[in-house]
């Protein structure tokens, strides 16, 4: 599965639903969707929203409750909690969901069987797609900087 990604050498903004979101220079943005775990096929009505592609993040996906509610249209309380992840002595809850990565060829279901991390505070500033499930999806990417 391949996709070509662009990033910019200066700060930019993108529109997500009714919000203008700042993208910092050199951040590679991918578009993703989240759904509850019983969705068995892609539905065009599932909202798309941006995430930072961060291959230094060793889990699958992290976002805040705010992103989840405002951009995915899902309240955290509807996603089953299946565990926690640990960063040194800090733990964050992991919830069960379906995660879709929008590729050139269409949405790809990433099978996040270890769950997604949902933070109640302000971090991360944008959702983060980590490296764990890109490997599972045999995902290959190329990127180009746009001045």
């Amino acid at each position, binding site marked *: 599965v391949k996709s070509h990604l662009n990033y910019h050498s200066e700060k930019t903004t993108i529109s997500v639903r009714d919000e203008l979101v700042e993208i*910092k220079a050199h*951040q590679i943005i991918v578009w993703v969707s989240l759904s*509850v*775990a*019983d*969705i*068995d*096929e892609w539905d065009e*009505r*599932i*909202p798309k929203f941006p995430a*930072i592609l*961060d*291959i*230094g*993040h*060793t*889990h699958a996906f*992290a976002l805040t409750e705010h992103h989840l*509610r*405002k951009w*995915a*249209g*899902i*309240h*955290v*309380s*509807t*996603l*089953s*909690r*299946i*565990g926690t*992840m*640990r*960063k*040194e002595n800090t733990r964050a809850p992991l919830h*069960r969901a*379906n995660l879709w990565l929008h590729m050139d060829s269409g949405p790809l*279901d990433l*099978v996040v*069987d*270890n769950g997604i*991390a949902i933070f109640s505070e302000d971090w*991360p*500033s944008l959702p*983060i797609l*980590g490296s764990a*499930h890109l*490997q*599972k*999806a*045999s995902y290959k990417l190329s990127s180009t900087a746009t001045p």
Partner: protein
Amino acid sequence: MEDTKQADAPVEATSMLVRSRAAFLRDLPELLKNPKHDRWCVAYHGDERIGIAKSQMDLIRECKRRGIPVSDFFVGCIFPHGEEDEEVEFGVFEFDDIELDVNPDVPSESHDL
């Protein structure tokens, strides 16, 4: 779709979902021995293996066809999983408006993160 699924209390994993996930992790070493199934998906309902397929969606459909509630089945991906309590590294650091030192020997007062 905004806020369409509100609920009063957090949804905890059902005991059947926990059992289903445990069955997946129990069988994973054996599943990994077949290279054909590398990165395929496998679904469990309790100790019962529902099936193995390339697509998670096919397995979710099969579970629904059998009338298994979504709260009870687990779909896992066949690839080496880490330890249950493995530490995660957060890679992202965001820098705004990096201020370069005028005199490299005298650091500027602050750099915004």
